[in-house]
């Protein structure tokens, strides 16, 4: 029996249950939203790929290299925060308020550290000459990473909202559906970063051209 069924949260008619199992309507809605959001990122990354593959010179002289090591650190922060989000959700299912708040707090901290890291990175890159609008390399970098950063910021605000509700005892009854939704959103932010990290940071700009 799934945990959701065990807590008696299934609200479906037999018809919806046939297609969506015990998923809440909110969860189905969140998946559809994430799918549409995924298309936004796919569009941006495909546009980046086309610009890059069609450019005679991608990385102009004088423009700084992106720091793979620093981005790797941000990646580990984000993946770790995904793990703490899993811990937060399991705590919510177990009706353990203190653990929920602890792990949700750690996830929020991970998001804040990521945003601070991104702000630090932008500051340095701008000082070193990577300016939005001066090249496709610079513009695609800022558009894609800031669009992702906006998702991280949204996730942090969303998690703060859930944290406050959790602190007020909202999930003590075992109705963890809201936590499940923020959990999905946060993992999606992690999922997208996997591709941003690979395509923007890891493909070397001078290699073999």
């Amino acid at each position, binding site marked *: *029996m*799934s*945990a959701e069924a*065990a*807590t008696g949260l299934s609200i479906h008619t037999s018809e919806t249950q046939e*297609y*969506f*199992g015990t*998923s809440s309507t909110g969860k*189905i809605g969140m*998946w*559809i939203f994430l*799918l549409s959001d*995924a*298309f936004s990122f*796919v569009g941006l*990354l*495909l546009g980046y*790929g*086309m610009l*890059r*593959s069609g450019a005679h010179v991608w990385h102009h002289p004088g423009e700084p290299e992106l720091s*793979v090591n620093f981005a*790797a650190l941000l*990646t*580990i922060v984000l*993946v*770790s925060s*995904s*793990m703490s*989000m*899993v*811990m937060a959700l*399991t705590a919510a*299912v*177990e009706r353990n308020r203190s653990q929920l708040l602890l792990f949700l707090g750690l996830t929020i901290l991970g998001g804040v550290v990521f945003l601070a890291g991104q702000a630090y990175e932008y500051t340095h890159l701008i000082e070193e000459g990577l300016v939005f609008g001066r090249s496709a390399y610079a513009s695609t970098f800022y558009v894609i990473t800031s669009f992702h950063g906006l998702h991280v910021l949204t996730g942090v605000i969303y998690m703060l909202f859930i944290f406050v509700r959790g602190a007020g005892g909202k999930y003590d009854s075992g109705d963890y559906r809201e936590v499940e939704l923020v959990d*999905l959103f946060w*993992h*999606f932010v*992690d*999922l997208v970063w*996997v*591709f941003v*990290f*690979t*395509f923007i*940071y*890891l*493909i*070397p700009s*001078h*290699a*073999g*051209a």
Partner: protein
Amino acid sequence: MTAVTREHHDTTVHAEQHATRKASAITFSFLVVLTVLEILLAMTRIEGSALYNAQMSGDAVFWGLVFLAASNAFLVLFFFMNLKFESKTMKYMVALPLAFPVLYALVLIAEAAWRRIW
């Protein structure tokens, strides 16, 4: 719910969540390892890095990175986002629309590889 039923229910929930935490910890370990592999692979084509190897094929590195990123994404999608445990309809609802841009991306990458841009 009686006290006995409640206790049984709580035990079931704890056991399920314990299994979820264990599976997630394994997924997390894989994600870290795959990310480290990605970085090491990328380093072989970054001039100035300790692992730089001019003989390394750019195509092999690129497809390796794509494969590792796709593996990472699969792990997050299936185990962190629990798509593995969703109904068939949910799986198709997510996978089918995404299959087209993925196919397009593969064509784009293959075409860029043909022109050897990296």
